[in-house]
């Protein structure tokens, strides 16, 4: 809602109707203007845009990387880390109350350290030790998570943990113990719904993955895996719809979260060209039936589109198009869902929607970065263009909000 614009127009009427004086009107308007907050979406767009342009420049450098002398390579490697230091100091001095700035600073610092470590390894052709690499990255990411109370940095730490601590009890215990106080503080401060949603999201990914893997092991046929995985996700949505009718308890909505995130995860995973894919037209039948059931349940009491509808449709569309062009359809559907969520989030000013959308779009961008078949120069140009698009989007939203006096 455009509260500020509304109060300005409405208070003029109050003055005309002599309900309040002009002085009182000014006090009321200034009071509402004072509580105006920065928009995290704008900061996210700006940071992501800058990161993409930075990554694009690094890739273009990388084309001629081998020609550069070692000291020059080392100096260039440090640029992102020094830029991250500057952002962190700025945040600590000027924006320490801004959650968006703190998140961005922690992410930027963590990823810059990842980049510097990788570039040093590449410059000196060191033998790869992925566990050591992720262990060092985890160790140096955790302080950023603590200093800026960053949940994203904590997620990066958790991702590194899964690799570094795999089948090593001492490392897993030490890393877990190091992060536990932060988890404790965050859980203590978080609202119950936000926390349970977050935990169930992780559970959904793991649960779906496990069931798929079990079926894959039992049947040994990849097309069954995708069908089963998408079926589980749509079952979550049906379950949410059924349970929601029985009770309006909040604790039932995480089932929807599980469904949505399962479909997002599966689509994002299937967008990689390297994964074996063998979907037949017959695979669509279970999804078609389940989506039919879901649609019937939704149609009974339709009050406008819900997030689950889009994801159920995406699962169905994917299974229909997968036999012909699975990778392309997974990419388009994931990006499409991301854009829809960013737009819906911007209209409703719902950060959760925007973050879901951003996550999906970013996953596809990062996923394409890891595609080995793309030339570095092309990757670099694509990243710079995407960065410019993000910055233009940022500029457009910022301008629109100014016009609307938000």
């Amino acid at each position, binding site marked *: 809602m455009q509260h500020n614009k509304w109060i300005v127009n409405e208070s003029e009427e109050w003055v005309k109707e002599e309900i309040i004086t002009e002085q009182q009107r000014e006090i009321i308007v200034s009071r509402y203007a004072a509580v105006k907050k920065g928009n995290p979406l704008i900061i996210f767009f700006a940071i992501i845009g800058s990161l993409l342009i930075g990554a694009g420049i690094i890739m273009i450098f*990388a*084309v*001629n*990387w*081998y*020609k550069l002398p*070692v000291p020059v390579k*080392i100096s260039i490697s*440090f640029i992102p*880390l020094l830029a991250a*230091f500057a952002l*962190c*100091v700025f945040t*600590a*001095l000027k924006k*320490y109350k801004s959650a968006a700035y703190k998140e961005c600073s922690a992410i930027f610092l963590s990823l810059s*350290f*990842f980049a*510097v*470590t*990788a570039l*040093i*390894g*590449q*410059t*000196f*052709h*060191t*033998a*790869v030790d992925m566990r050591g*690499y992720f262990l*060092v990255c985890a160790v*140096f990411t955790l*302080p*950023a998570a603590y*200093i800026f109370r960053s949940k994203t940095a904590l997620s990066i730490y958790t991702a590194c943990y899964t690799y570094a601590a795999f089948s090593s009890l001492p490392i897993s215990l030490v890393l877990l113990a190091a992060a536990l106080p932060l988890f404790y503080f965050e859980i203590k401060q978080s609202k119950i719904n936000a926390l349970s949603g977050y935990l169930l999201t992780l559970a959904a990914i793991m649960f779906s993955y496990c069931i798929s893997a079990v079926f894959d092991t039992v049947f040994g046929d990849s097309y069954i895996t995708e069908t089963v995985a998408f079926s589980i996700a749509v079952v979550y949505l049906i379950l949410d719809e059924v349970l929601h009718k029985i009770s309006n308890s909040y604790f039932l909505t995480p089932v929807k979260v599980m469904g949505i995130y399962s479909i997002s995860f599966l689509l994002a995973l299937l967008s990689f060209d390297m994964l074996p894919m063998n979907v037949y037209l017959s695979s669509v039948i279970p999804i078609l039936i389940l989506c039919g059931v879901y649609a019937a349940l939704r149609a009974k009491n339709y009050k406008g589109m819900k997030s689950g509808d889009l994801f159920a449709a995406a699962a169905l569309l994917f299974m229909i198009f997968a036999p012909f062009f699975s990778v392309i359809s997974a990419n388009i559907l994931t990006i499409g869902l991301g854009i829809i969520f960013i737009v819906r989030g911007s209209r409703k000013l719902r950060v959760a929607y925007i973050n879901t959308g951003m996550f999906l779009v970013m996953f596809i961008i990062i996923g394409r*970065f*890891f595609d*080995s078949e793309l*030339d*570095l120069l092309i990757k670099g140009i694509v990243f710079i263009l995407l960065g410019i698009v993000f910055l233009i989007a940022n500029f457009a939203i910022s301008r629109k909000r100014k016009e609307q006096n938000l």
Partner: protein
Amino acid sequence: MKKPVLIVLAVYFALMLAFCSYTILLHYDTLQNGEDYKFSVIPRDPYDPFLGRYVELRTENRVPYSFDGSVFYALLSKNSLGFAEVSEFTKEKPQSGAYAKNLRLERYYMNEKMAPEAEKVTMNPDKYDSMYVLVKVKNGNYVIEGLYVDDVPIEDFIASRL
């Protein structure tokens, strides 16, 4: 409120820079002042999503599987042709002689276009007199200086063919 955060940040940055600088200095010193060892290799061209395109090196001296995950030392010597050989892999730190800690000559990073070309070149090793990596070794630390085909750096060798 700001001062403690800034102090913690300063310590954190210092630790990060110290870690990176130590790694760089250790490798750079070895590269500048280490002793030369040439290891015969057969390259292959795979891809690492984090570090980029590289040439996988296969030397005659493979690390025993029993040493996986543990610290080990490779005792180095040179044969009559001047090429390096690993006389022994051991878990005990050698008291004398040249050695390299955790010697794994596995990767040589190359340009995206050059790595596949390198693979093509090395598909016919019999066509060339020698193919080796030059490794600098100092105090147990080692750094790969370059990959050579007939004593020419592979980057120059391929550039002349492209």
